[in-house]
């Protein structure tokens, strides 16, 4: 049911684990199936210097975590915020339709981690309703 890119990220997840002294942490749950994803960020000069994930979920959720962390590593915080689940799905060369929602976990967890970072920096959290949300896919 999954393509080889998805299976590769599932079996050899990149950036798996926790960061003890993270600058930002975000945990989100998918109400639909009770899955949980946690993202840890290390930020240097407004750039994602390190990123790690922990995921309790299906193959698509794990592969999305892995791919999403790859996609934001080295990006600016703003660029990382703009990563949509659609871009994650595209980078994975597609997910089965009923599994597209799993990739949303990654987008949401990254947002939660970035806002945690911003709050810790004394900044306003960003609003979830930015223009980029049109790129969403469920």
């Amino acid at each position, binding site marked *: 049911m*999954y393509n080889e890119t998805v*299976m590769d990220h*599932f*079996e050899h*997840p990149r950036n*798996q*684990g*926790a*960061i*003890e*002294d*993270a600058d930002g942490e975000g*945990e989100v749950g998918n109400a*639909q*199936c*009770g*899955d*949980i*994803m*946690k993202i*840890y960020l290390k930020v240097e000069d407004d750039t994602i210097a*390190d990123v*790690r994930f*922990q*995921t*309790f*979920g*299906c*193959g698509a*959720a*794990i592969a999305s975590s892995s791919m999403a962390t790859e996609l934001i590593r080295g990006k600016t915080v703003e660029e990382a915020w703009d990563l949509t689940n659609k871009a994650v799905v595209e980078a994975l060369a597609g997910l089965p339709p*009923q599994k597209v929602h*799993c990739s949303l976990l990654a987008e949401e967890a990254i947002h939660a981690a970035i806002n945690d970072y911003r709050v810790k920096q004394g900044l306003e959290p960003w609003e979830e309703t930015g223009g980029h949300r049109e790129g969403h896919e469920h």
Partner: protein
Amino acid sequence: MDHAATTATRPEVAAAMVPYMTGHFGNPSSLYDLARVSREAVAAAREQVAAAIGAEPKQIYFTSGGTESDNWALKGVAFARKAKGNHIITSAVEHHAISHTCVWLEKQGFSVTYLPVDRYGMVDPAAVEAAITPETILVSVMMANNEIGTIMPVAEIGAVARKHGVLFHTDAVQAVGHIPIDVRAQNIDLLSLSGHKFRGPKGTGALYIGPGVRLDPLMHGGAQERGRRAGTENVPGIVGMGMALELATAEMEENTRRITALRDRLTAGLLSIPETYLNGHPERRLPNNVNVVFAYIEGESILLMLNRRGIAASTGSACSTTSLEPSHVLMACGLPHEVVHGSLRLTLGEQTTEADVDYVISAVMEIVQRLRDMSPLTPAELRSRPESG
């Protein structure tokens, strides 16, 4: 390790079916001989199926599978007895072939009670009795559960139904060919079975209809199966199912001994993994069924990794289904939502060896550890190494 889902047809059964497909029986046959050969083969298969469940051949009606038998039993009785009453009793842990049919019957004006089960997935016969009203026309409780392997107190439930003049149907799709059955001793009025669950062909099944039981056809049409189930008979399929069931019955005792031992070895191996629990009844369960939950991880991920290692399995996690609903069976047993997600069903077959079991145990151990290392829920003491970072 997923023999409860389906089994391959025995090669000797497949070979025996081919002449009934092509009509080439080797010896030069006249028209008469050909028709007679088919007729006698169907009659022989009816005897084989009847013998396996303690029924008479004329009480066996061939269908296209377990799903058809279940739909027929429920809709057939419901529509035939609706003048008598509109209430049906079933359990919360039935296969969808029963539960979805019940939901549809509710839309047609029937009222259905879905009895709860205990933590082992067992229906209490006393609860059946308590649920019976003057409107009750049918009780349908499965013989053995397809997910957790629990064997229901079918004889007792049947006795309660009989006492109150209510028909009793049992979905025995997972039981036939695997555990001994006697429709008379077990007070069964209707029983569903499916050929591909005991190494017979797919697309074959049967409904046992006890003496005096009236039900509407599900398949209206020609006069096949004594006017009760229309449609050209699938002669090769019927022949194959009869043969497979006869073989399964003959080998049952020996197989049960061997497979139960393997099952117990597998269960013990898996339960040695910390925070792992057995689902279903510890003793009253199918000889081939193991169902466990691993805390902190999710079933589809386990399945995928097992598949990559050549092991088929099944899970009750919502994430593995298109409907995104977790197993209604495990939920009915009282497992919390997140725990249901970490369930794994392994079902053994006749060809499973001790080496297979040991390979599965070590594969599962390694996979569970990998996934727990990845999970945000895992407590530190269950992780294999300290977090990187």
